[in-house]
C-alpha cells in the first residue's frame, strides 16, 4: 500500500536534483516520536520506500507535484499521513510545497496470468559482498562490497536482488509462506537496464558516499499467488538496498497490465505517472 501525497508549489523554484535526502528528512519527521522512530537507524530493511518529487522539472508557484510513499505496514503509512496532514508545510530543500491532498492507493501486479512491466522510480542499489566477488569473476581485494555494474553481468544483480527480497519476505510476510528463492522461476521475465549512474548519497547526517545505482524496466508474468505476493512486496518495500533512503522505489508502468484473457489492458493503479 502507498500514500499519494499531492503537493502545491508555494514559490518558483529550480528542480533540485540533490533534494532526495531533504525529502527523506521530511518523511521521516513523521515517524519521529512514534514507535517507528527506530526504523530510521535500523540495520535491516524497514519496509518503506518512496518516490522522487514528480514530475521532474523546474517549478512555478501553484504547480502541482506528487510524492508516493510505499510501506509494508499500514501503521507506518498512517503515522506519516498524520504528520503531513497536521503540518502541511512540505519543504524539500529549496522547493517549498504545501500538502493539498493525501490518499491511499494499493497497486497490485494482478492475479496469476497477468502480464505487466514494473519500472524503477528511483535508482536501485545492489552491492556484491566481497566473499561473493570470486564467484562472479569480480576483482575485489578489499573488505568493501562492490556496487553492481553492467560489466559484472546480470546474474549477480538477479541473485542479490532476490536475496534481498527474501530478507524482506522473512521480515514482513507470514512465516509459513515461501519466499522468492524457495519458488521456481525468476522474479521477473525481463530485465531491461535503462542506465547506471553514480550519485552522492547522504547516508547519515554529515556522511556522504557515492553510490552506483541503476534504473530498470522489469517485465513480469504472474505465475501464481506466491509470485503475486513477492512482486507486490517489492512494490511496497522497494527493491535492492537502502530503501529507507528512497532507493529502489517501484511502479507498475502505466497501461502495461494485461489481464489474463482480457481484451483490453488495465491502467496502472497507484503508479507514478
Amino acid at each position: 500500500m502507498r500514500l499519494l501525497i499531492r503537493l502545491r508549489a508555494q514559490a518558483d523554484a529550480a528542480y533540485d536534483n540533490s533534494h532526495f535526502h531533504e525529502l527523506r528528512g521530511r518523511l521521516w519527521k513523521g515517524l519521529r516520536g512514534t514507535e517507528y522512530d527506530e526504523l530510521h537507524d535500523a540495520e535491516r530493511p524497514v519496509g518503506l520506500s518512496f518516490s522522487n518529487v514528480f514530475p521532474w522539472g523546474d517549478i512555478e508557484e501553484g504547480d502541482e507535484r506528487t510524492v508516493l510513499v510505499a510501506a509494508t505496514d499500514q501503521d507506518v503509512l498512517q503515522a506519516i499521513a498524520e504528520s503531513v496532514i497536521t503540518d502541511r508545510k512540505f519543504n524539500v530543500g529549496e522547493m517549498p510545497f504545501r500538502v493539498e491532498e493525501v490518499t491511499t492507493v494499493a497497486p497490485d501486479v494482478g492475479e496469476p496470468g497477468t502480464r505487466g512491466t514494473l519500472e524503477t522510480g528511483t535508482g536501485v542499489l545492489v552491492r556484491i559482498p566481497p566473499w561473493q566477488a570470486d564467484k562472479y569473476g569480480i576483482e575485489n581485494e578489499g573488505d568493501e562490497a562492490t556496487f553492481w555494474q553492467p560489466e559484472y553481468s546480470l546474474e549477480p544483480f538477479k541473485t542479490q536482488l532476490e536475496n534481498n527480497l527474501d530478507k524482506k519476505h522473512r521480515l514482513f510476510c507470514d512465516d509459513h509462506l515461501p519466499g522468492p528463492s524457495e519458488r521456481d522461476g525468476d522474479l521477473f521475465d525481463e530485465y531491461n537496464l535503462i542506465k547506471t549512474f553514480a550519485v552522492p548519497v547522504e547516508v547519515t547526517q554529515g556522511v556522504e558516499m557515492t553510490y552506483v545505482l541503476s534504473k530498470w524496466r522489469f517485465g513480469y508474468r504472474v505465475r501464481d499467488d506466491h509470485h503475486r505476493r513477492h512482486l507486490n512486496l517489492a512494490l511496497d518495500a522497494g527493491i535492492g538496498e537502502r530503501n529507507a533512503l528512497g532507493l529502489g522505489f517501484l511502479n507498475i508502468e502505466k497501461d502495461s497490465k494485461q489481464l489474463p484473457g482480457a481484451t483490453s489492458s488495465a491502467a496502472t493503479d497507484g503508479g507514478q505517472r
Partner: protein
Amino acid sequence: MTDNTVENRSEIVFITDAQDCNPNGNPLGENRPRKDPITDQAVVTDVRLKRYLRDQLDADDHGVFIKKTGDESEVRARLALDVLGDIDDADAIEEIEDIRDDFLDAATDVRYFGATLSFNADTDDDLLDAVAEAFDGGNYTGPVQFSPARSLNAVEENEESNTLTSVIATQDDKKTGGFDLDDNRLKYAIFPFHGLVDENGASDTKLTRTDVERLDTLCWRAMKNQTISRSKMGQEPRLYVRVEYATNGYHVGDLHNGFDLDAERSKPEPELRNVTDATLDVTKFVNRLASVNDHVETVHFVGDEYLDVSYNGEQYGTAADLDTLLEDHGVPTREIEVYNEFEQTLPADE
C-alpha cells in the same frame, strides 16, 4: 452466451479468513467490524460477499446492474437504454418481451442474485405499463442465495487508537479527500459462507449452467482480487465446495454447519493470529455427504494448502486434500483448477 439450462441444484460452502483487517465494517457503528456482542463471533453479511462477486464480474467485463456507488446511475441508465432500443409501441409485445431477455443477458449479477427494478405506478403510458408487465413487475428473486457468515471463532480486535478521520475533520480549508486507512481490524477470523443455487428459480432470471460453473472460479478470484487494498487486505479464500446434486429438488441444507474449528489442534481462540493457528474439523461435513452420496453428482472443490483439516479426531492433511478424503467415503469430486478454468467463462469466450 451459451443457452444452457441449469438442471441440478447446488449447495455451496465457501470458507474464507481475515487476518489483521476489517472484513465487514458497520457504517452505523463507526465502521467497526460487525460482531455478535454475545458470542464475539465476527459477521460478514451476504451483501458484502455479493459486492465482491459483483466487483469481480465487473472487472471481468461482464455487465453488472448493481455497481458501486458513483457508477450506479450511469450504468443502470446505459443498461436500460441498451435493451430498450427503438421500441416505441406497446403493441410490439414480442419485442418488449425480448428486451426483458436482453436485459437479463446483459445484467449478469441479476441472473445470479436477482434485483428489484423500479417502475412508475399509474403512468398512463401504455408502453411503460407493457414493459413493467413484461418484467413481471420488476422483482427478480435470485436463484443464487448466500447467507451471512458468522466466524467459527470468537474474535479479538486490535487495540483502540485514533483514526485519521478525526485528524482530517479538524483541519483547515484545504481538501484532504479520499483518505481511508481503517484502524478497526480483527486479529483473525475464519468464516464459512453458505450458498444455494436453486435450479427452479434459474429460469426466472435465465441463469445458465455456464453461470453456475463460473461461480467455481469467481468466488475464489473475487476474494483474491477484490480484497487487495486498504482495510480489506488480509482476506483469503481457504476452501470452496459446490456440491452438485443429482436428485431433483434435493439438497442437504446448512452444509456449512459441518465445519468446526478443531479445538485440540487449533490454538485457543484469543491466540489465533493466522491460518496456521487453526485446524478445520471436517468430520460432520464428510459424514453428511457420505451418508447421502447417492444424491451427489459431484463435489466441485478447491482448497488451500495452508489450512489444516482433521477428520474423526485425527489430523488428515490440508484443505487441498479434501478430495481424497471425500473419495475415500464414496463421494465423487472434481478439483477446480481456478486459473486454468476461469478464462473459459470470461465474456469474450461465451
